[in-house]
């Protein structure tokens, strides 16, 4: 593994490094966006006993390109009474943070734009800005559905940010660093085994933050039509589409880095390991989307505050105690303990989980 480690300013010059990795991260996002759109539509089709898109190119792999071309040629419609400037600005504000996230995601040892020593904090901070873009879109559209969708997005992000960040803190405690690179290097045992509860909480919270099913209330097609991007067409809509999948890609990459050991793995080259793990995580996201029906807004809020939040606090406490009290004990001993703790806590909390003092069906 250490053989694949690149020097921090590879290929030798600060500006060359900057230019190369800026291009790599943007191309990576755009390419994976197209791959993900294809994977999602095909996998969902097959899981629903359909075929999915299969006309454009072999197996329909050119479908995202065809969609992109179509969307480019579409008319750009701005609502007559909408706020034109904000309407124009919103997709940009939403897209840029998603691209910025990939500045600190390590594709392999040393292969990242900049190894910030506060990498994960940077991600948490920058990814929240997308919500501002979404809210701008909802407000500028002068449409009740888009405003409602944007409100829901803000509410869910504000609520779910807490358990997500708290479960990240557990990882940081174990790794002893905020740098994405150091977190990967600390994972001799993938943190999904050491932090099973943290992984569960992070994954659920992340799904809610990026509006994936079953938490896609912000663009619930059946009630508020399309949520915040209802009044968007053409390239602006494409940008929001890019945000949606870019966030899914970002979450897959962060889960990979924090919990699945990042680019580390035997035999295969590190960057390939990274891609494989990202692909697996995204497949699980699609799999969940095909399976689970959408939750109600009260269920969404209750899950964040009554279920994820206390469990995240407990997880943090347990992790801290384990690290402070038994620093010398081998981490392998902690694996079965932590898994047992997760099962007990989840079962216990499921039993106590009620809505409306037990008067509302969960």
């Amino acid at each position: 593994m250490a053989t694949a480690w690149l020097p921090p300013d590879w290929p030798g010059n600060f500006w060359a490094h900057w230019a190369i990795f800026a291009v790599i991260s943007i191309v990576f996002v755009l390419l994976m966006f197209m791959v993900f759109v294809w994977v999602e539509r095909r996998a969902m089709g097959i899981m629903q006993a359909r075929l999915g898109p299969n006309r454009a190119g072999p197996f329909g792999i050119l479908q995202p390109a065809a969609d992109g071309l179509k969307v480019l040629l579409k008319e750009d419609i701005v609502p007559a009474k909408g706020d034109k400037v904000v309407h124009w600005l919103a997709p940009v504000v939403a897209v840029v943070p998603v691209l910025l996230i990939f500045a600190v995601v390590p594709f392999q040892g040393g292969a990242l734009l900049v190894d910030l020593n506060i990498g994960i904090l940077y991600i948490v901070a920058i990814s929240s800005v997308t919500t501002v873009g979404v809210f701008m879109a909802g407000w500028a559209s002068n449409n009740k559905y888009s405003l409602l969708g944007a409100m829901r997005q803000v509410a869910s992000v504000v609520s779910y940010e807490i358990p997500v960040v708290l479960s990240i803190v557990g990882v940081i405690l174990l790794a002893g660093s905020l740098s994405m690179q150091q977190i990967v290097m600390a994972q001799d045992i993938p943190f999904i085994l050491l932090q099973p509860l943290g992984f569960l909480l992070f994954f659920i919270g992340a799904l809610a933050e990026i509006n994936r099913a079953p938490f896609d209330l912000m663009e619930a097609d059946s009630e508020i039509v399309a949520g915040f991007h209802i009044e968007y067409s053409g390239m602006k809509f494409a940008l929001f589409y890019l945000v949606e999948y870019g966030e899914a890609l970002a979450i897959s990459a962060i889960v990979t880095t924090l919990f699945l050991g990042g680019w580390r793995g035997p035999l295969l080259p590190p960057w390939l390991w990274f891609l494989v793990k990202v692909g697996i995580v995204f497949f699980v996201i699609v799999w969940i989307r095909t399976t689970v029906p959408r939750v109600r807004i009260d269920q969404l809020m209750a899950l964040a505050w009554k279920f994820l939040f206390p469990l995240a606090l407990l997880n943090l406490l347990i992790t801290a105690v384990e690290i402070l009290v038994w620093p010398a004990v081998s981490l392998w001993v902690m694996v079965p303990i932590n898994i047992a703790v997760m099962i007990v806590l989840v079962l216990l909390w499921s039993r106590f989980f009620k809505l409306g003092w037990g008067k509302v069906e969960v």
Partner: protein
Amino acid sequence: MKFERYGIGIAKGLRVTIRHLLRRPITTQYPEQRLNTSRRIRGNELIWDKEKCTGCATCAKTCPQGSIHIVTSVSIEENKYKVEKFEVDHGYCIFCGLCVEACPYEALFMGYAYERARYRRGELVLAKEGLLASEERKPSGYAHPEIAATLPKQSLLLDKDRGKR
């Protein structure tokens, strides 16, 4: 203690969806793959047998839409009706099949083809020669079990080799 509440329900659902990855999709890709229609399909057009028709106009009388127009003249030498005009307006036809059932000489059939749509209403009106059976206009087995026996069996979505034809 209902375990459905503790994530078991979601796990069951996940198992169902992942197993669909291994099954055949139900979709038939129409222009390339075609299912065999029912052998007794009522099709798009009527088919008329010139030889068997006696010009009795029973079909025109049973037609609830009045879409069959038949004009006959008496031929003294042959001692039978001569069919001057036999015209069906498929734009009015509701494909109830009553004419086919009513025909005492079995000279009318429903069509087996189902892709006989037209761009203009006028093209839907077929007369005499246009109503005869041909390669594209096969008679279906509707009310004619002897024809049904010769047609291929209807393919069901359950069939393994459906769509191969």
